[in-house]
């Protein structure tokens, strides 16, 4: 048996930094592609460029998932060892492969808008399944409320919009980012209140415990400040939003395992 076991920066058996980083990369770049198809379908240059970022995000993210495995060389077992539709991890692996192939196709070849929208459905599944993956576990912070998919999708829209803003500072994008950030904040607050009775230690770890730096860092630097700066300095607001999107994925992943 060949074992290559790369150390997980978080140690032990937790889903840690690699997973959070993957959620962030796939969520942000996937969100950018979804927004460009949904709102800028006529601008084929933007759609194809965001397809390239999303492809890179999905590919690098998938690489992170593989090195996080205990047996990385057996990663093909995920896809080729039978049919396991009850396992969100199995479905997600297929979504990743199909969305990655679709994104590469959209980037390389001129495609119809129908194809681009079909690939957008696959990308939405990649962005959304990560929340369902957490909900399938026995951890109350992840599954005591059904809001995690809302949080991840809203955050993907905010961060994806911010990514597009970095070289496409368009008025419509600003309104979009503000709207989805407000939804994201409301969903997060509701999720914390909803899960508090079942997952008190996790919620407290976020509010006043060892994860408070990530949580309040997100609230202040990655969410509040960008909202304030959105009309003043779009580039800075977008960068801070991206930092916030990573902090959000990180503290959600960690708080479930407190």
């Amino acid at each position, binding site marked *: 048996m060949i074992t290559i076991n790369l150390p997980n920066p978080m140690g032990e058996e937790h889903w840690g930094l690699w997973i959070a980083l993957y959620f962030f990369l796939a969520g942000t770049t996937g969100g950018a592609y979804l927004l460009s198809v949904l709102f800028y379908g006529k601008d084929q240059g933007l759609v194809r460029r965001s397809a390239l970022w999303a492809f890179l995000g999905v590919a690098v993210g998938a690489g992170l998932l593989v090195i996080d495995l205990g047996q990385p060389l057996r990663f093909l077992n995920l896809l080729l060892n039978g049919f396991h539709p009850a396992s969100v991890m199995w479905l997600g692996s297929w979504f990743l492969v199909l969305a990655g192939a679709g994104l590469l196709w959209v980037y390389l070849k001129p495609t119809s808008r129908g194809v681009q929208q079909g690939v957008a459905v696959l990308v939405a599944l990649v962005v959304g399944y990560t*929340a*369902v993956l957490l909900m399938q576990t026995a951890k109350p912070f992840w*599954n005591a409320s*059904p*809001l995690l*998919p809302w949080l991840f*999708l809203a955050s993907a829209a905010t961060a994806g919009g911010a990514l597009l803003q970095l070289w496409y500072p368009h008025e419509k994008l600003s*309104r979009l980012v503000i709207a*989805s950030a407000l939804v994201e904040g409301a969903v997060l607050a509701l999720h914390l209140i909803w899960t508090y009775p079942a997952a008190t230690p996790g919620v407290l770890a976020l509010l006043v415990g060892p994860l408070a730096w990530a949580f309040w860092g997100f609230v202040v630097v990655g969410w509040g400040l960008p909202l304030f700066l959105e009309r003043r300095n779009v580039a800075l607001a977008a960068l801070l939003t991206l930092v916030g999107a990573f902090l959000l994925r990180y503290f959600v992943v960690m708080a479930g395992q407190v």
Partner: protein
Amino acid sequence: MPNPKDYAILFDASRCIGCKACQVACKQWNDLEAEKTENRGSYANPPRLTAHTWISMRYYEGLRPDGDPYFDFIRGSCMHCTHAPCVASCPTGAMAHREGGVVTVDEKTCIGCRSCVQACPYEAVHFDEARGVVHKCTMCYDRISNGDQPACVKACPTDALTFGTYQEIRAMAEERVRVLKERGYARANVYGLAELGGTHVLYVLTEHPSQYDLPKAVREAEKRAATGWLSAGIAAAALGAGLKFIVERREALKGGGQ
């Protein structure tokens, strides 16, 4: 409901003396390495299950509302659920039911993704860092498939552990609860009949399961994932349509005003 001919173990908490013979026998038979532990002010040691500890006794002491002292013991281990969340969440089929309803992991197929670790409500599956795969109780499948008893059952000096077919074990558990109720244990109950499709390890308890940190009304992983998919679908539709409406309605109004 498990098949009546399935293998099953009965743990009778009213007969257990907390001697840990089962815990030691499990280590010996399965050749599990010792762990460095520390005194945490409880007899429970190690305090939780690990990749190298498949049975860990838990100790509960205190005073009942009427002033009587109690000192209760629970055998913490895999429950071998019929609708096992670890099996449902496994993307490779490595974690699966074997003949007789026993849940084991195939070490040569496992990729070490830790979905099962996160999914188990009994925290009975753990990741072995050194070997990159997960481990758990096998109900001593090597022994029982050769007509012997599991090592823990064989070692128990007080008949708190019994091994047999599910039909026998269930009848024994229900009879024992009837006797305990006659003797004044009004809250005596069998744990594991309703949980996760019926577990292949049944507990006879003298108090409510929550007294022993045993989860009641555990949702199956398939149902948790179904809730997640539904929520994700609604979220994607609502966010997509909502953002489109907010952003483009304003544009349309502006356009109309010009």
